[in-house]
């Protein structure tokens, strides 16, 4: 159960992030999760949205440099040590996390985090075996 993350290239220019978000807003596409990776000269905006296919089409039409990546959305108990326990399990099974970030909203009582793994198939299997809940594309749309 993988979900789509959209990466957008952001040059270092005032108002560029606003333009991207405003583009999504006008198309009634909702951002569910977001993070920005940056260097001093440019950044990459990573987002999970409710309608990824529409967002990609929107970016294509507006010549926004974007690319899609598969990520995994994982439910983490919203309590002290919740994330540490999940990361511990992943580490024990040699699952490598490239990066991760949080959802804006909660799906249930649990916190929801986006993980980018170097090997998503295997990561998924480890999570399932350890009864850690993974959220699918459809669940995201219904948030």
């Amino acid at each position: 159960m993988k979900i789509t993350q959209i990466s957008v290239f952001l040059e270092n220019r005032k108002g560029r992030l606003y333009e991207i978000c405003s583009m999504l807003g006008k198309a009634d596409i909702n951002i569910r999760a977001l993070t920005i990776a940056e260097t001093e000269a440019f950044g990459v905006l990573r987002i999970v949205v409710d309608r990824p296919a529409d967002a990609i089409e929107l970016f294509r039409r507006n010549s926004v440099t974007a690319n899609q990546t598969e990520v995994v959305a994982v439910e983490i108990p919203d309590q002290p040590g919740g994330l540490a326990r999940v990361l511990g399990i992943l580490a024990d099974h040699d699952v490598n996390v490239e990066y991760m970030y949080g959802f804006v909203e909660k799906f249930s009582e649990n916190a929801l985090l986006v993980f980018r793994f170097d090997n998503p198939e295997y990561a998924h299997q480890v999570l399932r075996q350890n009864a850690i809940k993974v959220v699918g594309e459809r669940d995201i749309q219904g948030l």
Partner: protein
Amino acid sequence: MNVTFWNKEVETMSRGGIEQLQVSRMQQRIADALKTPFYQHRLARAGISSPQQFRSLSDMQKLPFAAKDDLRQNYPTGLLAVAMEQVVRIHSSSGTTGIPTVIYLAQEDLNAWTDLLARSIVATGCTRKDVFQNMMSYGLFTGGLGLHYGAERVGMTVIPVGGGNTQRQIQLMKNFKTTVLHITPSYLLHIHSRLNEFKTRPQDLHLKKAFLGAEPYSENTRLKLEELYGIDAYNSYGLSEMNGPGVAFECVYKQDMHLWEDAYILEIIDPATGQPLPDGEKGEVVLTNLVRSAMPLFRYRTRDLAFVHPEPCPCGRTHRRLSRIQGRTDDMLIVNGVNVFPSQIEEVIMSIPEVGTNYMIHLARVGSLDKLTVKVEIYSKMFTGELNALDALKNRIRDRLRALITINPSIELHEPGALPVFEGKAKRVVDEREKL
């Protein structure tokens, strides 16, 4: 003012004497040129098949111009007039499109060039008692070795340190009581800004003179450097195609540079029409080397803009003076003393599939050094979404540029369509450096 000469007879020769010498040396060079594949063909077309057909300086007009492209197209040996075993020195530049240019010197040519440098050095009042620290780079670049040989010929104590490593430069200047520098004005400014760091004041040094060159700068910069260090700073002119430095040099009066007319024929032309311009009018400098047998080169278009002072100099030298270079007829940039053509940068950008074809070159001055920034647009289809990939791309562009132009640019990645689009002639270079 104390005026000294290296070769008083030649330096103060009558104009008629100089012109006679030019004609006879020109005949020798034509004889050499007729041995080269390049000039056999060219001179035949100009109707010249023997040296005797060159009778007076007005015959210069019959000879075709030569340009950098001719040197590239005839690389490596098209202009070589002697057997390779006669060649004692090769200098080469990287060239704008990857094809280098090359200059050959036979022993007599090297001697003649060295003599011009010795003459130039002595014209500034230097003697064998001076300690000369040469901060120009050595190697294929002509600036370092040219002055080095000249200073040795004068009998100065030569410190062949080359460029960079400011701490060591300052230490050498102190330890050996250096009196004369050969240096780019921007590096001399830079050293001044760092003297404090090494607990040194300008008056702790023993400097008396600096030979400035290799990059454009204003009279104000010269005056500033003279004041900062309490020295006399001299302008110089040269280019690798004419051997290198020593084509023209200022004397102690520092009122523009004596062009050594026994060794070079100087013409100033209208760059658009190729017609000669009278003294005093600004135009393109065109030079003929009279003292190089291994590689004749006639009427070379330097792309430098300058004018000639015909009036006599108080020093008594009869060789006319050339103004400082006022600009270029092409788009060559000089960045920290290194010649860079935008086409070299373009070539690198075009060879990298992840970036588009639009680009901008930005020049600024940070402290006393130039900063070159190259802005490119990433190609949408090559965008993987990974930051590392972008960083690696940036480094790859930077490394390739550094390999070609020998300076370290900073690279900016932009979104497709973010850089200005030009209809008609593109203006890709933004130079925000204040005039040095």
